[in-house]
């Protein structure tokens, strides 16, 4: 088993790190403080192809593998969790289902602008009454001649309001339960589609998380993604990929908190010596570093599995579960090792700890991941 990155993956990591340090890190604190979507960063990433990394060249993508995409999300999240999730939601949830399930026409019309970054993508599954239980969808889609009419609402949608293209799930046949769910490609401009309340969040505060409202929203028939009634499967397979993106975000947050803590404990002095000289600090750092490395191995393995295996739900769930919990644990320890300063917004670890919490919740809570994992074992 080969754990080394290829030369091109190594160079790509260098690129992502340079970009993160030069362009993203300087904005991270302000973006969090003001809850501002970093539109200038998104524009820069668009120019550099960061919004189409694991996407086919024939549609204008970068033609890289999933692991390279994971490296991008990791390095961006290492300095800014907000930027990490913007890329992850766009790529894994917005573009990937069209790449996998779209018709050639749909790919030409929607995948091309998404992977070039000209348009931003998002994914709408969660509803007020359908969170972990995605089968409880209330949004309805009724076929009416050459178009569907959508009614209902979605909540907690990442990139909501900022995205141009949304993958929306709705019931086409309520009587069939999950087999009555269908997926649609919905443009921001479609009549009857509006953006609702923007959430005020604990972390990833620069990321735009909103409600989506559909009031007799007209969606052309050709925008049905996959077949009618196959939406639930599309959602679940998409989330398998999305979980790798979130796992990479969690990994990046943990690694970033570790970076900051290593620098801090070398600098901070108490009792006349740097706190790095105390065994408690040394052992804490050892544990944090080991867990980050273990998480990294699981996340990279899941990324490779997505490119080489038909099914990778188990790998993705394990990576997401573990990386998210490591992110929470490592960022919490990072704050503790920073002492009082770590509790202030002067230091990045405060933000990282708030950002980390969401990774245990969205795109399947840790409990859902445990269900997926145990379900495939037992």
């Amino acid at each position: 088993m080969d754990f080394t990155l290829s030369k091109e993956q190594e160079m790509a990591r260098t690129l992502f790190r340079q970009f993160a340090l030069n362009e993203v890190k300087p904005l991270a604190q302000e973006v969090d403080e003001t809850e501002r979507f970093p539109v200038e960063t998104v524009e820069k990433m668009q120019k550099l192809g960061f919004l189409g990394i694991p996407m086919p060249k024939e549609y204008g993508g970068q033609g890289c593998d999933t692991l390279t995409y994971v490296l991008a999300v990791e390095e961006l999240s290492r300095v800014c969790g907000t930027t990490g999730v913007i890329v992850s939601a766009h790529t894994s949830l917005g573009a990937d289902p069209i790449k996998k399930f779209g018709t050639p026409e749909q790919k030409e019309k929607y995948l091309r602008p998404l992977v070039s970054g000209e348009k931003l993508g998002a994914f709408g599954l969660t509803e007020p009454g359908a969170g972990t239980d995605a089968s409880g969808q209330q949004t309805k889609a009724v076929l009416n001649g050459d178009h569907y009419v959508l009614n209902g609402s979605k909540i907690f949608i990442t990139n909501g309001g900022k995205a141009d293209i949304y993958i929306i799930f709705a019931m086409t046949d309520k009587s069939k339960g999950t087999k009555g769910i269908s997926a649609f490609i919905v443009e921001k401009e479609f009549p009857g589609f509006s953006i609702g309340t923007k959430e005020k969040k604990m972390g990833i505060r620069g990321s735009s998380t909103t409600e989506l409202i559909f009031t007799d929203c007209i969606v052309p028939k050709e925008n049905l993604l996959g077949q009618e009634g196959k939406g639930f499967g599309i959602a679940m397979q998409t989330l398998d990929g999305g979980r790798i993106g979130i796992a990479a975000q969690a990994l990046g947050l943990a690694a970033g908190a570790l970076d900051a803590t290593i620098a801090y404990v070398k600098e901070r002095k108490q009792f006349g010596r740097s706190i790095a000289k105390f065994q408690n600090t040394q052992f804490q750092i050892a544990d944090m570093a080991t867990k980050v490395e273990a998480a990294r191995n699981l996340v990279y393995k899941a990324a490779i599995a997505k490119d080489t295996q038909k099914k990778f739900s188990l790998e993705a769930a394990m990576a997401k579960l573990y990386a998210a919990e490591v992110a929470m644990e490592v960022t919490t320890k990072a704050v503790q090792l920073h002492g009082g300063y770590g509790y202030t917004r002067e230091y990045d670890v405060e933000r990282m700890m708030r950002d980390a919490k969401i990774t245990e919740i969205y795109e399947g809570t840790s409990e859902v991941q445990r269900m997926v994992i145990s379900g495939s074992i037992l």
Partner: protein
Amino acid sequence: MKIVVCIKQVPDTNEVRLDPVTGTLIRDGVPSIINPDDKAGLEAALQLKDSVGAEITVISMGPPQADAALREALAMGADKAILVTDRAFGGADTLATSTTIAAAIKNLEYDLVITGRQAIDGDTAQVGPQISEHLSIPNVSYAEDIKVEGNSVIVKRQYEDRYHTVKVEMPCLITALGEMNQPRYMTPGGIFDAYKEKEVTVWGLNDITVDTANIGLKGSPTKVAQTFTKSLKAAGTKVQLDAEESANFIVEKMKEKFIL
């Protein structure tokens, strides 16, 4: 238009640290980068490619590891890459280096040769002008800006207290200042293409026409007599006081030294 850009792979001196005990440089784990002035030269070439169209060949003399610097140049948008490497080239001073690189460039068609002003590991600024002499073409050093006008290049040439606008006919050589532009980032797809689609051509001694008496250590007029770690002067007094006391301390010392 055909542009040749000369680049050198150098250790990132921003990352070089001193061993506090021995005072020597810790080079282990120091990343290698494209020399900053050379990267600005490459960016200038890429901008010409974007504006007027050009085929860009990057060339580097160095050990086999310099392949990575050339791949990076390809990932930024260069079209072709040549690595000039051979044990026979080793130990060269600037004159022998410029002789070797000029011999490699003679194998190519070119209108414009761009080098960086100087490399951060040697800081000599000699190789560019010396290459132009071997190629018998004009050179303009210290370029802040390069524009193409017909068969000429208009260069904004920096001096300490002024600049000249210089018109020079192609073929010619320009040395680029790092501050002339902000080099672009690579793209992820560019990186993958640089490794999977494009090639780095390797040239050794047998691929260029050069008098072996003028290359490598043997062909270098300058020889290193000795190297030594500069003995820093002994550290003075160091104090840790509050701000008020610190200011008093400095004022006292200035008085002692008759500055005040």
